């Protein structure tokens, strides 16, 4: 049996929706368990007083990356069938800055705001309202910026292709970055945590 199951027609559209819902619940559950339903925990990442976001995200990245690599190496997964979204460099850079800005101000990113809402947090509810308002604003303004949204099209490019280095080497570098981050996290948290309490 080969993955991706949907692309190999092992199940159809209806079943894939059920799978999506289950994965969505699992995603939300683990975000909540990691403490990401709390805006305090999330914004602490930006002040470097709590690197939980970094640690959780990089754990997920490293696990998924190594998993996908070895599964396809062993022939259980056809990675060329896995969808890669297109890179539009300039609009995505600007979008990333905007999202980061909204993250610090609002205390959530879109996914975690839903987790916050599910646990009954009022600030997450307000964030959700802003999210929907933002979607409408973007939709209305879309005709004026369509050209920009699709500019600097680099195609569905991956880091190994971009830098022209072996896939495995990129993986090793990312694992090293993650492990270095995990190792340094306690000291970073202590340093910035103390600085913040001194100021207060």
């Amino acid at each position, binding site marked *: 049996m080969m993955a991706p199951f949907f692309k190999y027609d092992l199940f159809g559209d209806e079943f894939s929706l059920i799978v999506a819902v289950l994965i969505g619940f699992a995603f939300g559950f683990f975000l909540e368990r990691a403490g990401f339903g709390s805006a305090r925990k999330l914004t602490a990442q930006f002040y470097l007083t709590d690197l*939980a976001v970094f640690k959780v995200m990089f754990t997920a990245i490293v696990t998924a990356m190594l998993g996908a690599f070895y599964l396809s190496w062993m022939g259980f997964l056809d990675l060329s069938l896995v969808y890669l979204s297109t890179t539009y460099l300039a609009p995505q850079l600007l979008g990333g800055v905007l999202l980061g800005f909204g993250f610090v101000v609002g205390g959530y990113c879109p996914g975690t705001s839903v987790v916050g809402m599910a646990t009954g947090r009022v600030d997450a509810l307000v964030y959700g309202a802003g999210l929907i308002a933002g979607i409408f604003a973007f939709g209305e303004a879309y005709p004026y910026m369509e050209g920009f949204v699709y500019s600097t099209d680099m195609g569905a490019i991956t880091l190994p292709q971009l830098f022209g280095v072996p*896939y495995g080497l990129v993986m090793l570098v990312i694992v090293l970055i993650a492990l270095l981050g995990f190792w340094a996290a306690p000291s970073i948290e202590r340093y910035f945590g103390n600085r913040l309490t001194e100021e207060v």
Partner: protein
Amino acid sequence: MSQSRPPSKWNWILAAVALVLAAVSVGGDPYRGHVVTLNTKELGMIVDAEVDHVTAEELADRLIQGQTAQRILDLREPIAYAEYHIPTAENVVLGDLVDYPLYRNEQIVLYSGGGIHSAQAWFLLRAQGFQGVYMLLGGLDAWKDEVLFPSLPTEAGPEEIAEFERLVQVSQFFGGSPRHGSGEEFVATPMQMPTVEPASQVPVAKKKKKRKEGC
């Protein structure tokens, strides 16, 4: 508000596992290479069911209707391609085909001069896991006979004449010229191939935006 506790034994073990797995894979490439496994039974059934090809007329109809969703690949030599090719066709020689940028959810129509190269290409692409691959039945020869230069048999019934009227329009759309009368006339007036891209009303297909996936 320091949250981190000192790393436990398990943290070290998991970190070591990640590091070892990453180190072992250096230089590796997870994308499937040129070695594939084939389901010969399935391929045989597809060929048997005759769902592996389109006829020249079907392809002409699609192009006239402005259907640009399919990719048409011309497998002949670049020189032959430069002289004439079916509108919107892209030139790929067989050796480059396996690395040619194609999406697996695309409809791909293959043609060559006769049909041998397109049959070989069909096999290669099916082997690579492409599902929507079709050969142009009879290749460019059939395209010439049926679409560009259709001929009316000397003793044609009214139905055949009515059908021929339609073919004349199709032929003219692609810049061809229909032939009347007997076989001798064919020789007398050699077929003039239309210039490249005769059907200017068919815009060269820009790749359509793919269905959005992901978040």
